[in-house]
């Protein structure tokens, strides 16, 4: 059962990047923004997608599993922490293994950094910076019950399909209430969208 966590609803996101600026204000990594904001429908609509660490539960934290230095700690509350700076060797395994594309790496500092759900804030009962400031509720921090009380008729999913594998996560995405299948993690072999070729499949660079 989901406890207090972040719920992501790209349908409400206005792409304003308040989360990106707010992330930078978080004391545990002041000046460095960990959140990603992409415009996946570039050229067609202004749709946007915020990405925080999904805190994978099963398989538990692929980033930590592929870490050769055992640098990524998963705390008892299920939060996948950023790399321990004493151990991280900056190999970037986690960056490329993460199916959600979350971790960042500082190559000069030989250090991975990623969203830790604002551990300095959540451990004191505050919401993470991004979800605190999000003007639209596209990033919502709380329990499912609190979410549904504010938004009647929504449901959430913690299951993501990457090919044949399903990854279950600690952070959830909002889905319509009738949806029962995992959220697709992306379709790699997509060669055409709405009659247009995708990049790498004949689209103009």
């Amino acid at each position: 059962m989901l406890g207090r966590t972040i719920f992501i609803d790209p349908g409400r996101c206005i792409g304003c990047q308040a989360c990106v600026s707010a992330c930078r204000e978080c004391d545990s990594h002041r000046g460095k923004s960990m959140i990603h904001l992409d415009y996946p429908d570039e050229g067609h609509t202004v749709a946007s997608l915020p990405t925080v660490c999904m805190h994978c539960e099963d398989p538990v934290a692929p980033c930590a599993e592929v870490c050769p230095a055992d640098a990524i700690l998963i705390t008892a509350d299920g939060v996948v922490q950023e790399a321990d700076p004493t151990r991280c060797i900056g190999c970037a395994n986690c960056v490329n293994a993460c199916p959600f594309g979350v971790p960042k790496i500082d190559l000069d500092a030989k250090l991975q950094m990623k969203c830790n759900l604002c551990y300095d804030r959540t451990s004191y009962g505050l919401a993470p910076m991004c979800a605190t400031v999000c003007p639209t509720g596209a990033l919502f921090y709380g329990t499912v019950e609190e979410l549904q009380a504010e938004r009647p008729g929504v449901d959430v999913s913690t299951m993501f399909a990457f090919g044949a594998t399903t990854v279950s996560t600690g952070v959830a995405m909002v889905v319509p209430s009738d949806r029962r299948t995992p959220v697709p993690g992306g379709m790699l072999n997509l060669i055409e969208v709405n009659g247009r070729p995708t990049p790498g499949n004949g689209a103009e660079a």
Partner: protein
Amino acid sequence: MPLDPSVAPLGARNFRDAGGLPAAAWRADQTEQTLVPTHCCFCGVQCGMYLRVDGHGKVFGVEPRNHDINRMRLCPKGINAYQQVNHPDRLTAPLLRRDRNQPFREVSWEEALDHTVEQINRIQQEHGRDAFGMLGGASLFSEKTYLVGKFARVALKTRHVDYNGRLCMVSAAGANKLAFGIDRAANPFADILQTDCLLIAGANVGECFPVLTQYVWGARDRGATLIVVDPRETAVARTADIHVALKSGTDSAFFNAVLHVIVEEGLTDEAFLAANTTGWAEVKAAVKAYPPSRAAEICGIPAEQVVEVARAFGRAERAMGWHARGIEHHTQGVENCLTVINLCTATGNLGRPGAGYGTLTGQGNGQGGREHGQKSDLLPGGRSINDPAHRRQIAAIWGIDESELPPAGTSMMEMVWQMQRQEIRGLIGVCNNPFVSLPNYAVVKDGYDKLEFHAQFDFFLSETAANAHVVFPVTVWAEDEGVMANAEARVVKHNKAQEPPEGVRTDTWVMCEIARRLGVGSKFAFEGSRDVFDELRRASAGTVIDYYGITYDRLEQTGGLAWPCPSLEHPGTPRLFEDGRSYHPDGKIHLQVVEWHPPADPYSDEYPMTLTTGRTVAHFLSGNQTRRLGGLVEQTPRPWVEVHPSHGFRNGEPVRVVTRRGSEVLPALVTEAIRPDHVFVPYHWPYPVAANELTIDALDPRSKIPEYKVCAVRIERAGAIDPVPAPPVPPGREAYPEAQVSRTDPLPPTAPQGRGTAERG
């Protein structure tokens, strides 16, 4: 091959998108920290925030504040706002030069003030009092806007005073006054949550008022229908139930047609109309001439959409209309607003929770800034300068003779034309940057260049200040206290978080000091904002805009009070017209007939398309503040031209945008989210990439607002894009390089909201 040849994917490998400040400068020591409750300095939503102040009394960060306007939410501008306070680009000494060919030099306050007063006296003696003008701004605290009006009339004794709200709020103000006799939004934001149908006309809520989106989404969570009228598919329009992508400059035809259908289908509230309005018969007759088919032709939309909107709005139990610059920045801006008022009134949607009408002010004090006398024709308390009774009242409060009070002046753009004609030869500008914000840059530059003397107050050297003779370094919002009124007409208090840097004074101090040197010091014996506010309260007592019951103490206790608030016990007035009565003497809502007419700039074979301008989420107005904040520059480093793919341009390709007034080359942001016959350019950047080199200086005859939102344009292929200049700084200094790193990016942002976080490096 370097020893460390590591490679990592784009967007994962560094933290450039973290804002351009070096990480080492971002300390997070657990020293003593004070949280000062205040509000954002930027838009008319006036979100609450805490400024984090360290043990040395310096502002170093921001913390969300659970104020009931924003409930901890903030937009990227608000989050980065605090970085202005101790920014390396701050002006810390007065700058002076006797002629524009010389470079500025830093001088003492004495020298700068003496020179200014000498020039005021010289120009006024040689050319008359009205040859010296004053331009204020709507980002000033209300106390300071009050002082700008009083300073112009009492110290300068000139009729020529106006402010930059003339570019922003005046159409809505004009329409409100005509219809309701009161100039403010009728409902608080919270009413949006209770509506069944929300009509947003010409407001890019997601980018210009991001925090307001929570109310829009909240209404939809509770089942409301969302209608967005905008030529672009903005972030709120993208998911709206109905998005009316009409041609810019056709709003009144559209709303007349909607009203036509509402009348046809019997969706009007005749009882409400009969009891509370005048002019309904005329309006009803006028809209008969606007069947959906006509609107479809004028607006370039399907006729069914008109019917769909009419039914959604007309059938809703509670409906609301909110609008912003999209319908106001037109030569019929006032009339466009009136058509929305007609729609709300005809359906009886006024004065109830979830039913009403509102206007979204652009500047932080867009509402408060127009209330207390810095507008050319207004005196404090919204009094008219043409009304003898009002003149007598204010003359008495100011301790002058009524005959000494100058008559009404002219609007901001008209004042620039007068500068060109040398009818105005000297100018003091406070809190404005017309070189970026006024239309038709060539005319503006010419007008300002003809000034014999120009002084400007600012905390960063704006493009306009960089062209002045004297620049006074003044405080940022966090270094003084004062009130602002947000888009709901809720008056909120800003608190002082830190002492101004050495050499910096408050605008209040500077105006009072010049007044003293002009020999009227006794009328400007203000120690600070508190004293000015007390006089403002008394000056507004008994008017429609009654602040008498609002005190600093009450504001600190309540988190904000909406005027009218006539007594210290009065709870304020968040919602107007609850009894159906307007503020006209007859208590009726005066409905006005509106006929659509085409925009001022005619289309031709040479200029066949429409240029529309507007804002982007990372920047604010003329950008003098936001173009210096690393995180915001990083998000949106440069302007672009938004074009539909049907024109055959590739993303990032240089496109020359040509109007009758100028041309410039911008990278193309090719997107289907804009009408094929429109192009869009954001206006926050200066020459040579200023949208306002292209726009037309045609004014609404009533409000004198320029027609920013539509002019005739053509686009063509070009060689190289125009570079974005660095923000001006005094001689010998450099615009803070850390914040300017991405300014030279030649590509357009990924989307109008900015560059995705992983787009470059």
